[in-house]
Structures are given as C-alpha cells and as structure tokens.
C-alpha cells in the first residue's frame, strides 16, 4: 500500500490525515513556515482543530498534503 512522506522531514505515514496530525504536532519553525507557502496558517489550523468538533484542522491540511506529499513505496 501507498505511504506518504512529510514535505518537511522524513516522517512517513500511510494516510494523509495521519501525516497532517504528525505535521501539526511539530513545533519547529521549518514546519510552520512551509504552511504559509501553501496559503495555510498554523494558528488557523490549530484553532479549527481545538474549537470545532471533529478533525477539522487536520482535514484541511490533509487535503493540501494529498496534492503535495510525495508517495513512497515502502514505509
């Protein structure tokens, strides 16, 4: 099955939602900066995740990662 690599580090996940969860768990500048290049805001994603029920913030990022995260064969 397909796996996806984080655009900023070596982390590999089998689903875009898990990758988004990993991504928003990172506190370093590098990860935060890249979001801006995608027209996303770290604060807005976190706020969506913690103020609305469901995985709203993760899903929004996952949708972007679907387009940008590179697919890798072996996890």
């Amino acid at each position, binding site marked *: 099955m397909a796996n996806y690599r984080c655009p900023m580090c070596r982390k590999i996940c089998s689903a875009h939602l898990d990758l988004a969860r990993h991504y*928003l*768990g990172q506190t370093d500048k590098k990860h935060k900066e890249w979001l801006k290049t995608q027209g996303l*805001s770290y*604060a807005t994603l976190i706020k969506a995740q*913690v103020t609305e*029920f469901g995985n709203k913030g993760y899903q929004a990022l996952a949708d972007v990662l679907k387009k940008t995260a590179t697919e890798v064969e072996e996890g």
Partner: protein
Amino acid sequence: MGADGEVREGGIMTEYSIIGKPTPNVDGPAKVTGEAAYTIDMTLPNMLYGKLLRSPYPHAKILSIDTSKAEEFPGVKIVITGKDTPGGKWGLWRRFRELADQQALATDKVRFIGDPVAAVAATTEEIAEKALDLIEVEYEPLPGVFDPIEAIKDDAPMVHEDFPSNINATRHIEWGNVDEGFAQADYVREDRYVLEAAHPCAMEVHNTLASYDKGTGRLTVWTSTGSPYFVQQNLAEALKMREGDVRVIKPHVGGHYGGKNSTMPDCVNAAILSMKTGRPVKIVFNRDEEFTTTEHRTAQHIALKLGLKKDGTIVAFEAKAITNGGAFTGLGATTLFLTGTFITMPYRIPNYRYDGVRTYTNIVWGTSIRGFGAVPSKYCAETQLDRAAKDLGIDPLEIRRINAVAPGYEAPGQYKFESCGIQPCIEKMAVRVKEKWPKLEKDEGIGYCGFAYMSGGIFNWIDTPYAYSSAHVKVNFDGTVDLYSQAADVGQGHNTVAAMICAEELGIGIEDIRLHMGDTAHAYTDLGAWGSRETLMNGNAIKDAAGQIKQKLIDIARLKLGENIAYDLVAKNKRVYLELRPERGLSYYDLVKDAIRANDGVPLTGTGHYTPHNKGMISPAYGMGIMAIKAKVDRETGHVDAQDVLVVHDSGQIINPLGARGQVEGSIHMGLGYGLCEEMPMDQGMLLNPEFVDYKILRTRDMPQIEILDVPTYEPNGPFGAKEAAEATIAPAAPALANAVYQAVGAEFFSNVLKPEKVLKAIKEKEQKDKATPKAKGKGK
C-alpha cells in the same frame, strides 16, 4: 480507614507488621512543638535580605532601568537587573529547549504583572523594600493578550517571539473511530465550559536562602520546594553552573499542592545575589506576591461531545481544551496532556478524540496544581454525564456503574488499569448511600462523581524519557538504618511512608530508621513530590534497596541455621526465621553484627531503583473510586450548603491509614473550594483578590464531615500492593457538588465556583426554562 494489613499477594495471605497500621507522623514531635525548621525560619550569619522589583504592566518593552538611587540608599549592598544575571533560561521541559522559557529577571520585555525586572540585596528586609521604590524603570506598554481564544489568532500580540499565535503546546489523542461511534449513538449532546483559575495557597510562601562559597565556587540553597532535583537542575541551567556544584536542601515545607515544582525567581535571584555579594541572601515573598506571581491552576475552555446508547452506554466521546497558559510553561504543558487522559477515567470509552492547546498569555502562568489534568476536566465530564443520564431517565449512579472499567482495561496506546476496584466501589456506594441518606428534604440533592488518578507520571522532561526514583539504605552495626533519598515530604506524610516501607521490608521497627531525605548532596535522586508518585515510585526504590540487605541477612541466616531443606525464610519482628517454623530463627541484630564483621566492618548497603517501562503513556497504576455529596440549596439566596460527603476509594494496599485519610480529607477540602469559592478574577492581567481577605478558602465551619470507605486491591506495580491515595479525591468534589445542586433544584452550571449569585441566576434560568419548554434538551435520534 479499612485496610487491616491483610492483602492477597499472589494468592497467599500476607500479614504485615507495619504496612496498613495507623502510624503517627514521624515528623510529629518537631511539627507540634514549633521546632520543625521551614526555609522561612532559617537565617545565616551575615545574611542579607533580597527583594524583587516587579512589573506593573502585563506586557511592555523595558526601555531603561536606573538603579543608581537605590544603590546609594544606606544598607543596600547590591542592585541587579537582567543584564547582570548569567542569563541562562530554564524550565521543567528541558528536553524541549524552546520550552525552557523562564529567566531570572526580564531583559527585553515584561510578560505579566509581577514579572521581576530588578533585585535588591540589603541588610534588612525593610531597607530592601524601600530601595525598590528608588529604582526607576521606563516601560513602553505593549498590547496584551489575556484570553486563550484571542491568543491563538493570527494577529494576536506575541508573548514569546518564537511562538506565533502564542501556541505553547498542543496535544491530540484519538482511539477507535469517533465519527462512526457518534453515528451509532442514540443520544448525543454537546456542552461548552469555562473553568476558573485557582491558587494552591501554600501557607508557607515561596522563599529561599542561598549561600555561595567563594572558595569552592559552589552554591548551597535551602528552598521551599516539592522537588530538590528539579531545583538543582534548573538552578544549574539558570546560573550556567555544573549541577554538582549546586546543592539543594529541602527543609520542612509549608505546603506544596503542585505549586512548588518550578524553580521560581526567589530561588534564582537569591542565588545570583549571594554569588555577587559573597554573603548569604534570603528572599521571602509577600502573600500578594505569592498570589500574583506564583503558579496556579490554569483557567481554561473545555468543549465536550458525548454519544450514548439508550441504555446509557458510552459509544463516543470528544473533548477539546484551550488553556490560558500564562507567560511561561512550568508543568502547564503536562497539565494539557493529562487533561486529555483523566477526562476519560474511570469509564470505558470505545471511541475517543481529544485536542488541546496551551496558549501563552500575559498573565502569571498555570501549572501542575493538585489533581492536575483531572480537576477541570472531570468537572465538565461528570456534570455533562448527569445531564445525559437525566435526559435518558437513568439513575446517575447507575450510568456510572454501566460505564465503569474492569481490571485489565486498556485505553489503546494510553493507559492500562491493572488493579482496579471501581466496580466494587460503586456497588459499596449504592448500598451505603441508602443507609446514610434514606430520605432527602426539600431542595436537597445527592451528586455523584467517579474518579481515577495516576500513581506518579511515568514521564520526565529533564534527562530521561521515564520518571525514576532511587534510594540508598545503610544498615549500621547496631542495627539502626540510614535511609537516603531526595523524595520530598511536603506534608503529605511521605517520610512516614518511607520509614514504614523500609522497616516492613527489613522486618524491623520504624524507630530503627533514620531518614536523610531531600538533600541533593547525599540523597539518591528522586524527581520529587508531584503526581502522587512518592509512595509507588520512591516506595519501590526503598523496598528494592532494603530488599537487597534483607537477602544478605537471609543468606547468612540460612547458613547459620544449616537446615537440610531450603525452607523459605522471612524477616519479621526483628528476626529472620523459617516461614513455616517461626521458632527456628535468629535475631536481626545478631545477623547484622555477623554480616558486618564478616564484611570487615563495612556497613550493609543497598541501592534501590525504580523506573516504569512499557506502562503506557501515563502511570503504572491508578487510584480510583466514587464520591457522593449531599447538598442543600437556598433558593432565595443561592447559597449552597455542602452538608455531607461520602467517598469510596480504591488505593490498593493502604500503607498508612492515618496519612491516607489525611490526604483524602485535604483533597476534598481543596476540591470543594474549587467548586464553591476559589477563583482568580483578573482585569487586563491584574489579579483582583491577591490576599486571603478576598480569596476565599473554606474554614472549619464550612467543612462537612467526610465518610471514607475503602475497597482494598493489590496493585502489582506498587510496593506491597500500594498506589495513589493523595490526589484522586480532589477532582470529584466540585462536580459531585454541582451534580447535587442539579439534582436538588435542576440548576445547570457550565463553570465551577458556585458563588451564591451564580447559583441564584441558574435557578431563575431553570424556572424560566421550565415555564417555556417542559422537555429537557439534548437531541435524541
């Protein structure tokens, strides 16, 4: 309390001679005669007094500081500002460098009202106090951020430059399939809560005596702390010294309750002033400094979504928490993590999701106050559960029974209950409540709350992934025992527990034990008193150390007795003897003498250690139970009278029933305060009630009597089957009380602190609602 020293250990009934017996506090004589020395009672020859100048602004640039006038003031020996400090930043989350955010004195800017900007050392406290008035600081006020939801906006003022949108820490927990879970639910409700901050209010304020040795370049610090280890590590960082050159001594401590884990500016600045003047320096906070600048229980917003089957079974649960973190981290990030865990206990939740964010704001910061993670979260979860039960027509105790976990329950990837007495606790409660409160008067109600709490967190952020504890035991020629550990007695009675465990393991008496605790110079490392960890973690380390010596004595006894069959030997009642033939044995004292003679006079020693591995994310064991509170509501004034408290508690094998009861009584007192009167109202970061005149604490007339029943279990991870007895019972008090009010008059609360005006308002709202719609809310499907 019930434990009688009999407990099932691996199927065999074991009779303890000390464990489980009510044992007076080993510090008793010192504490009732006034001889117990607390840091605040200590002085040294040639000592100076330090004071801190604090910011009047919640958020401001420091443009200039002029200390010249203060320096000229007679009796002032030194005045320092941020630029004069070693400049090391520190925090309890050291492994995450960017979260080591505390500093001795603000340099570039101040982040909360009370942020220290300068320190004075003078010959008297009064001179130091007066000198503060002579320091001139020029500030440029900056826009402040005080509400956590405002704080995470894109354009919010930044409390720390490296943290855009003030996001200090985030936490996500998820197991099962939450969305499917809600789809299967017959009943779903959402509730949003706002929880107030509360202060630990230790009776001994934060204070430190620091003495720097010019000759050796080493520092000795006496300070009122819950963890000499944390202080040693943090001080070394703040001062850019080697940890081994910093000796931290914890004298008797006048209260902790989670507020004395972090290393605070009193400690670091006393050290710096001593290093610069070459004289001992003491800094004691005033009570208003204690309130406005030391750590408190974090205010927060919590939103909950609960999905149930018609029969009351929980099928899905989702929790969101936004905490008003304040200016620094402390253990606040840990609180955020634990909130997502304890909110689920002690219930079976097949599908669960948690998201939490801790925000930096321009107020004094929140941290790990007693019952951290559990107190606000349980308030919300358990009051929501009562509303759901009412809507579904299920008895509130029954809905808790239906969902309570069983032994061996595992929350995927998070935690596992090995010993688990919650079901028997609830059964015992059901029986006792009927006897105790057969009928209720008008406007009276009974509220319930289930609870569970850790027996020490397995986590550590300083230098190991896991928490740990160590202890060293030395047996002298005369049989007396020296026990060395940094484990901290902060009033909870750990010194007594430590002596009991050591004595039980060696089969001797408490009077044989000499304690040498809480001194980093010679006591073996322990992370200190937080998260109810000392009994289990330090207890295991002590049992290990003493056990090594016991084994030596048993080996010698076996040789001397020369039995032709390898019978089991036990050490008990100051003898080592054949378990099945007690008359065949030898005196402990004789065996010790023989062993030491055979060892060229070297005393017998054992060094014990404990660290939990593969025990999930939280703790190796959990204390748990259920609480019921009977309350009466005055419909005209809104006054809530907490009349009577009943708690059924599984603390595993209780080590000291006297101390365990003390912990439960004290936890309930603080928990009722959280539910009734304790709050920290602020205006633009300014605390409005920084003295006991306005910060209300329950006095003796406000306290109900408390009945405590035990359901003893055997906890395989704990010493002699022991586990948490200290903090679990603080969380249920406020929700049980709010539920009692809900049962009595139907008033609903979405925040803690049931002040009369709030209660009266809620009663009126209920009456309006009853007129408007007869049916209660919560959308059934």
